């Protein structure tokens, strides 16, 4: 009897195990399979709002759209310098205001239609048309008459600075010479769209238009849209009609909208992704130690605290004194924050603008000097922090913002004797509070659209939508507008002077410069680190013979 029972039990267990095993035969991982077939699996961080280049504004959208569309110029993957895209060459007038682009004869849409200068004119008209309400229309305000057309002051689009001089010849006239114009052309807002398709599937100025669906879309990039399963994946496949199709080696790219960075990291470790959008802070050490996939690259962005300096709206009178603001800035131990709290190679920031592009280096900076900070505070009439009302720091809910704020809270208490209250708000409430200047000190971040110090310093001009501190200095505004027309060393010097004003007045307390942290398997080739984290898809391919990557051994496996 006993033996029979045992046998029964054993059979059951065996059967169960076989069934399980059968259901879960180890297939090669998605990444290994992808390497063989040139199929790239990309962790895209979120579901794109749309794939219409004129309507979108986020990074996940941009990652896909730059595979589907191409502008007049594209970028060198190594240094982001402009290289020919749809335009094979261009001429610049001596005053730097007029550009003539010669489009490639073989540039075409994915349905076979030739791509003409007129397509660009119609595209620029569409994004500038107020009826479409494109958030990035501002990018094209650089065109002569662009802003006026958008606001309705100039009803006639033929007066706007873009003209088709022939089917393959396009003339663009700018409001003012801009050294970064060509770099800007790689932005979604400047991509052409196929207006006949847009008109066919809806109204041209209606965002809710079905033309971006896989079955409808016509595009001109290296890839075409094959599948769009919301919240699951978006698949693009190689475009045979692309003028440079020979260069394109990837057959397909799958974009996964994984929002949670923990979930994304697990998918990466499970061999489902070639790259991730980001990496959880706590996992950085493990990947540094035992994995081979972590990338930490400088990124053109700054993390800083805004101080509300608007006399009517700042509720903490002590913060209206620049000396107090400088004291606060000088008592933050940024080395300790980047090393102990953030731990992923971020750089301590002593100015708003990261050094680097266009040969810019800030001249006057803040520093970590607690003694000096205490002296400044006494000078301002608050020896030992006495008399400073409790300072409130506004953050939006996030683990990392919270940790940085908690660390700074302790530093200000310890070095200056100032009590700090951290207020966390849900994202949109936080944005609204900052917008209404309903805060004392608030967390902020700025990531540049193009590699130039103006991308940072412009935002602090008075009345700029992204200033949000109430800071207004005519002297500063003058310097910035001078910098637009200056060039070379003279321009750098002007920008340094502007930055010096910021560091004296301290409406923004710089904390650290971003790094781009993500995971990537070693089979990905043609992917180069750069300041804007821009990796043009047409140069990327997968190494079939790559060895599986070493993954860190974590938690349960230890």
């Amino acid at each position, binding site marked *: 009897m006993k033996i029979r029972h045992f046998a029964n039990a054993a059979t059951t267990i065996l059967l169960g195990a076989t069934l399980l095993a059968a259901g879960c035969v180890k297939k090669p991982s998605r990444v290994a399979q992808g390497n063989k077939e040139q199929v790239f699996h990309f962790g895209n961080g979120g579901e794109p709002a749309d794939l219409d280049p004129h309507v979108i504004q986020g990074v996940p959208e941009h990652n896909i759209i730059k595979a589907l569309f191409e502008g007049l110029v594209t970028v060198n993957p190594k240094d982001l310098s402009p290289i020919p895209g749809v335009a094979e060459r261009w001429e610049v007038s001596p005053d730097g205001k007029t550009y003539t682009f010669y489009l490639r004869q073989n540039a075409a849409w994915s349905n076979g239609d030739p791509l003409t200068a007129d397509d660009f004119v119609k595209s620029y008209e569409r994004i500038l048309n107020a009826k479409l309400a494109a958030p990035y229309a501002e990018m094209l305000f650089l065109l002569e008459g662009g802003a006026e057309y958008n606001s309705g002051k100039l009803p006639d689009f033929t007066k706007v600075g873009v003209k088709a001089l022939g089917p393959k010849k396009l003339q663009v006239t700018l409001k003012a010479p801009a050294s970064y114009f060509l770099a800007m052309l790689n932005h979604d807002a400047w991509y052409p769209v196929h207006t006949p398709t847009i008109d066919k599937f809806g109204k041209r100025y209606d965002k809710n238009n079905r033309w971006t669906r896989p079955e409808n879309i016509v595009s001109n990039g290296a890839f075409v849209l094959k599948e769009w399963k919301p919240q699951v994946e978006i698949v693009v496949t190689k475009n045979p009609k692309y003028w440079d199709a020979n260069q394109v080696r990837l057959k397909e790219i799958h974009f996964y909208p994984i929002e949670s960075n923990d979930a994304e990291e697990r998918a990466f470790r499970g061999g489902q992704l070639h790259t991730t959008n980001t990496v959880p802070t706590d996992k950085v050490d493990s990947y540094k130690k035992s994995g081979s996939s972590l990338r930490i690259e400088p990124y053109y962005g700054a993390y800083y605290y805004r101080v509300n300096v608007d006399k009517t709206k700042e509720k903490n009178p002590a913060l209206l004194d620049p000396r107090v603001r400088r004291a606060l800035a000088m008592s933050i131990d940024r080395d300790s924050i980047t090393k102990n709290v953030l731990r992923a190679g971020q750089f301590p920031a002593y100015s708003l603008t990261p050094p680097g592009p266009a040969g810019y280096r800030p001249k006057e900076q803040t520093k970590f000097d607690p003694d000096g900070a205490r002296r400044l505070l006494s000078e301002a009439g608050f020896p030992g922090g006495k008399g400073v009302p409790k300072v409130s720091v506004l953050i939006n*809910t996030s683990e990392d913002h919270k940790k940085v*704020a908690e660390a700074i809270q302790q530093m200000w208490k310890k070095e200056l004797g100032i009590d700090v209250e951290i207020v966390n708000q849900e994202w949109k409430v936080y944005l609204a509070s900052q917008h209404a200047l309903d805060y004392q000190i608030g967390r902020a971040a700025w990531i540049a659209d193009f590699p130039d110090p103006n991308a940072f310093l412009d935002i602090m001009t008075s009345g700029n939508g992204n200033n949000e501190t109430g800071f207004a200095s005519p002297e500063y505004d003058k310097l910035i507008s001078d910098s637009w027309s200056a060039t070379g060393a003279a321009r750098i010097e002007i920008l340094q002077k502007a930055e010096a004003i910021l560091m004296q007045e301290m409406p923004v307390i710089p904390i650290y410069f971003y790094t781009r942290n993500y995971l990537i398997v070693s089979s990905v080739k043609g992917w180069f680190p750069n300041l804007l984290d821009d990796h043009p898809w047409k140069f990327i391919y997968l190494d079939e013979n790559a060895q599986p990557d070493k993954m860190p051994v974590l938690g349960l496996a230890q």
Partner: protein
Amino acid sequence: MAVTLAEPPSPATPAALAEVEVGHSLWQDAWARLRKNRLAVISGIILLTMSVLCLIGPFFTPAPDVQDLALYATPPSAQHWLGTDTLGRDLLARVLTGGRLSFAVGLCATFVSLIIGVIYGTISGFYGGKVDNLMMRLVDIIYAFPFTIFVILLMVVFNRSLLLLFAAIGAVEWLNMARIVRGQVISLRKMEFIEAAEALGLPKSRIIFRHLIPNVLGPVIVYTTLTIPAVMLLEAFLSFLGLGVQPPDASWGVLINEGSKSMEEFWWMLVFPGLALSVTLFSLNFLGDGLRDALDPKTSKD
């Protein structure tokens, strides 16, 4: 007499019915029965110990918000019994102070939801018909209303405070309670002893408070003990929205949430707050079951 519930055998006269007190004897009996239930007693003791620890423990640990950035997430040691978190703060101190908040929120908010839910559900179930329909549809409406928006608006209109936190949680948690109580009351109402009481013309409030509510205590206690953990975790979501604890303070819900993100690297950051919560929940539930059994007069007869 085919069916009765917790009430004494069928009442004969109004006078006799009036005499029937839920009061003394029931509670005394219940207490005696509860004391005999070993697991419930142990649970009670654990709960008591836990609350005492959270109340006085933090006086003997380092302050929960003092950081030592160099002590990045160190495992348990003689210095820090439960280890430190990623800002080098003593985890024991954080778990204990977090417990104060979680207990306060768990108990107060649950109490609020209990009172509203039981009274609302009983009235709705007792009166039935149009009243019931109206009251229950109101529950449906509140139930469907987006909680996230509700909380965000609450914070705009009022200043954030602990009271607001209780109000926000109480406002949603009573809904299920009301439904369950109503369901129970509807089936009780058809029972002989209630119909008899009604036939005898006893005041409705008396029927409700003396006869109905004591009889729904069983499911109510059980559901209450289930509400407490839900509330403790809901509080973590509310801190996400900016209501509830503000950094550097943390509740168990917030600590567990943080710990769950780094469970593979720093197990202690999840295990200890998680353990504190689990032990509390288990004790609460076994105490709840014990109470339920003790308050059910039938169990003693078996």
